[in-house]
């Protein structure tokens, strides 16, 4: 045949066989598009019908000429041939055709070689596809590959299928093509499998008849027929093996990893990993072929309007999308769809920015309101804000890092990584990363790995910060505990030989846990400071104790005791005198007791020095204070303070002790024994009598304490009558008269190993007290006659 003859035959064939590219519309009639659907009862045809309805409902700008085909393969081929204007095609098939269309021609090969099967889906050749520019209008619906396996068999690997019959779909359908590549990803060929021939209806019947082991169906999740089979207990949905999924996505990135959600089918209680593929609306243009004009932009616009309309009204789970439906989306968007996508993107950015601005403004005004009402304090001083040492900040930071990484990594890899199918998967993976367990095995893409590495580094930093903040809190609380200023002991004008006092206070005894604040002069040797610094719960202050302002921080009104020591002369000849320190204590305690109000005397400009006889020391918040002095007449010197201050002439007492020890040889041992807080020693303690001892004679109380069993040895010494009407010198009664009655204001003095022994003995003395009283009465009665 000559070249002219061949040209003539070709033109004739085109004229006779090719359908009219765009059905010419009558005047005033909307254009009609040749629309490739599927079999008459298939899902594509239903979708086409819904779209046609949507077009009618959205202005009837375009009409569809729905053409029944064999499915995706047929549709793509017809589209490439220009026999259809628009077609529904499974995206994997469409993407393969697109790749075929962009394959550069092999100039060295003859026509036949170039047109040979290139391995593309649906046996499309590069020659068939070349010349057609495929454009994506929109993705419409989603299908998931679902592996139905006859119960009770469960398949973890495709090798387990062996020669058992398997149904992959109808040859030529998109479902079949998808199944083929899945089988390929598992290392098998379709030819090597025992394929069940027939339609899907027959395959379901075979499954029910126990003749079929496996069905691979690419259909929407929740498909009625699958639901029936699963509900009947004949088969279950099995997950696609993870390695198959990963290989599939690596070789065919037109799918995306997804899962069949729990409860999609009756009895399905967990997510089943699989791949999803979308059904897209595709069109083709032929730039070099004027015989096949492109679908007009107006028609594409109308189709998109219809798609968005039916997405709201139809029950076919239509979800129009321009992107984000496959791991890779190589087919370019139709310009109209692209413009819509860009507009939507800008709209989303605008909405997001507006929302962010609104949140910022709302937060700003809320903060202002809370500040004005005093709910928020100065961020640099306290509260949750602005605290680097607040562990909630790094904890929140850690949470933000994990959440951000979760979302970003999920966005990057959820379509391609079987381990990151859901946000939940991503969240737990990112928790692993952020706690320092970086791994390249979990994440596939460099960008996701970069995010994972950043999350790891930042997470470790946040955790370190969190740990440091917590440590700081513990240390601070411990410091606060050590420095607490309630029931604390204050020693003013400390000097070296009083280290013994600190040791005694820290030896086993009731005061060992009390915080001690020591105010030292500047001249105190550093070796003494070092020794003091080693004492637990002791805080050193270096101040002039004669200045009341220096004492205010010690909160003296809450102190259990204040001890004022005599000072040693400094190198400059300066001596802090106990009397001046006592004045400072008085003023500082008054100030802190009144919450900082000094109540200055108008005459002196200093806090008024009120004696205890005016308002009482308790009302003034004055602490019980002991002053060491060597004055000859300390009582006269400290007379204005006598209500709350006790002067101790230590030098004179030293002489007394020496004389006493010289005169009574065992005095020294006894004295040392009763004043030393040692575990193996007995000391003197006092405790309030229980109600049942009040009003009873001392002899009863004494015998009761001797007789209580089950406690440590308690030797009652006497009473301390802490009553206003009793002169201070008469309050202490050791070995009082046996008939003297115990009063409520009394304290019982006893020699015992521990204060708790005395308290325990008193608690348990009720019954014994009654017995002892009866015994005493009997004894008195016997003596009376």
């Amino acid at each position, binding site marked *: 045949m000559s070249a002219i003859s061949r040209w003539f035959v070709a033109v004739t064939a085109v004229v006779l066989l090719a359908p009219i590219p765009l059905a010419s519309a009558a005047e005033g009639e909307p254009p009609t598009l040749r629309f490739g659907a599927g079999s008459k009862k298939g899902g594509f045809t239903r979708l086409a019908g819904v779209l046609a309805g949507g077009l009618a409902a959205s202005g009837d700008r375009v009409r569809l000429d729905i053409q029944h085909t064999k499915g995706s393969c047929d549709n793509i081929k017809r589209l490439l041939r220009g026999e259809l204007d628009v077609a529904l095609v499974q995206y994997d098939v469409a993407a393969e055709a697109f790749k075929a269309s962009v394959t550069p021609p092999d100039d060295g090969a003859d026509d036949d070689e170039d047109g040979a099967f290139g391995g593309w889906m649906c046996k499309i050749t590069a020659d068939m596809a070349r010349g057609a520019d495929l454009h994506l209008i929109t993705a419409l619906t989603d299908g998931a590959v679902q592996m139905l396996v006859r119960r009770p068999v469960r398949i973890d690997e495709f090798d387990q299928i062996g020669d058992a019959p398997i149904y992959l779909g109808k040859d030529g359908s998109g479902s079949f093509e998808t199944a083929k590549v899945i089988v390929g990803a598992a290392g098998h060929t379709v030819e090597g499998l025992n394929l069940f021939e027939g339609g899907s209806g027959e395959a379901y019947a075979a499954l029910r008849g126990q003749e079929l082991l496996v069905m691979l169906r690419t259909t929407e999740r929740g498909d009625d027929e699958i639901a029936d089979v699963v509900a009947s207990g004949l088969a279950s949905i099995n997950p696609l093996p993870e390695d198959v999924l990963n290989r599939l996505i690596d070789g065919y990135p037109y799918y995306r990893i997804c899962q069949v959600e729990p409860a999609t089918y009756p009895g399905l209680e967990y997510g089943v990993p699989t791949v999803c593929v979308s059904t897209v609306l595709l069109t083709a243009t032929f730039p070099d072929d004027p015989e096949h004009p492109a679908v007009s932009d107006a028609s594409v616009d109308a189709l998109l309007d219809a798609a968005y309309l039916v997405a709201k009204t139809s029950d076919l789970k239509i979800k129009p999308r321009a992107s984000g439906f496959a791991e890779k989306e190589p087919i370019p968007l139709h310009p109209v769809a692209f413009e819509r996508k860009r507009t939507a993107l800008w709209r989303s950015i605008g909405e997001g920015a507006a929302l962010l601005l609104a949140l910022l403004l709302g937060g700003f005004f809320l903060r202002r309101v809370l500040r004005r009402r005093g709910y928020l304090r100065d961020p640099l001083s306290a509260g949750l804000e602005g605290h680097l040492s607040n562990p909630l900040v790094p904890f929140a930071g850690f949470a933000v890092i994990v959440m951000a990484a979760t979302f970003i990594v999920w966005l990057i890899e959820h379509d391609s990584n079987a381990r990151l199918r859901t946000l939940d998967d991503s969240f737990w993976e990112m928790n692993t990363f952020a706690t320092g367990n970086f791994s390249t095995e979990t994440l596939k893409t460099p960008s996701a790995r970069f995010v994972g590495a950043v999350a790891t580094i930042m997470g470790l930093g946040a955790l370190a910060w969190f740990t440091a903040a917590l440590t700081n809190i513990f240390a601070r609380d411990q410091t606060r505990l050590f420095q607490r200023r309630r029931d604390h002991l204050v020693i003013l004008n400390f000097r070296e030989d009083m280290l013994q006092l600190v040791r005694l206070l820290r030896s086993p*005894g009731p005061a060992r846990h009390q915080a001690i604040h020591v105010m030292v002069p500047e001249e105190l040797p550093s070796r003494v400071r070092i020794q003091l610094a080693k004492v637990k719960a002791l805080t050193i202050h270096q101040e002039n104790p004669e200045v009341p302002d220096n004492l205010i921080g010690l909160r003296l009104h809450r102190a259990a005791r204040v001890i004022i020591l005599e000072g040693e002369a400094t190198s400059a000849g300066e001596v802090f005198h106990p009397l001046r320190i006592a004045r400072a204590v008085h003023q500082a305690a008054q100030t802190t007791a009144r919450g900082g109000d000094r109540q200055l005397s108008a005459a002196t400009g200093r806090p008024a020095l009120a004696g205890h006889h005016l308002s009482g020391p308790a009302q003034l918040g004055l602490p019980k204070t002991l002053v060491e002095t060597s004055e000859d007449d300390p009582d006269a010197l400290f007379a204005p303070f006598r209500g709350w201050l006790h002067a101790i002439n230590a030098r004179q007492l030293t*002489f*007394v002790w020496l004389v006493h020890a010289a005169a009574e*040889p065992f005095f*020294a041992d006894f004295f040392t024994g009763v004043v030393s807080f040692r575990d193996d020693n007995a000391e003197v303690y006092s405790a309030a009598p229980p109600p049942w001892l009040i009003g009873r004679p001392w002899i009863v109380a004494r015998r009761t304490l001797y*007789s209580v069993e089950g406690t440590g040895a308690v030797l009652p010494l006497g009473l301390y009558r802490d009553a206003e009407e009793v002169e201070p010198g008469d309050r202490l009664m*050791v070995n009082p008269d046996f008939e003297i009655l115990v009063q409520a204001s009394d304290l019982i003095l006893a020699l015992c190993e521990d204060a708790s022994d005395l308290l325990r003995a008193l608690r348990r003395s009720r019954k014994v007290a009654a017995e002892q009283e009866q015994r005493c009465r009997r004894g008195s009665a016997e003596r009376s006659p």
Partner: protein
Amino acid sequence: MGQPSRVIVVNFSPDARGLTAAIVDFFGPAPVELVCVGVVKRAVGEGALAGIDGVDPRYVEGSVSLGVDRFVAVLEAAEIGLPDATAVIVLPHHASAEVDAHSRLTCVALGLACGERPLPNTVVAIEDPEASFEFSGLGVTTIFYPGFLRAALFAHACVDLPVFHFILALLRGRFRLQTLEIPAELRERSFGDACMGLERDPEGGPVTLVGVFAIDPEGGAPTMAINPGPSFALRRAASLLAISERRR
């Protein structure tokens, strides 16, 4: 009237005048002889001791700074009756470069001055508590560190004010510590039984047992045990320790 108590104060200085007052106050109306040995000149020492009621103190000039032998000679020459003294109080000599070493040498001199006889009841006040072991073997009865007394007083004042007052009263001699013989009927009983049975001292005043002098199984001197516990067997005790109000 019995033999008067003789108290010898060594290393006396005028600023220790309060000690002499304390001696007079403690011994009260009982006759007491007070001998003060000091480093200050005789006139100064006697001047410091002048005017103390109830006692006629004697001052002897000398200290171990002269040398142990010379100081011993001074003591012997003064005829102060050291071995027969009721008590000796050795005060710290603050002018010395090593105060406690000076006190130790003083005790050595005192021991030499006593010759073959033991030192009387001797109390030494030291400046450094770590120096106390240096006095072992010198026959000293009590080593006293004034810092401990102050610390004890203040510590108890911090813990319990009534107890502080008790200690202060004990220190000032308001209470008398006395040893009591263990009555025959209690010898096989326990300390708890003794507490219940011994409520008055031989003079009829209320008394409280606070401890025992436990027999040393190795034959040594009995040791004081304060509050040994109610089950302590009195057959292990040489005597009882009791506290009572001092009646003057």
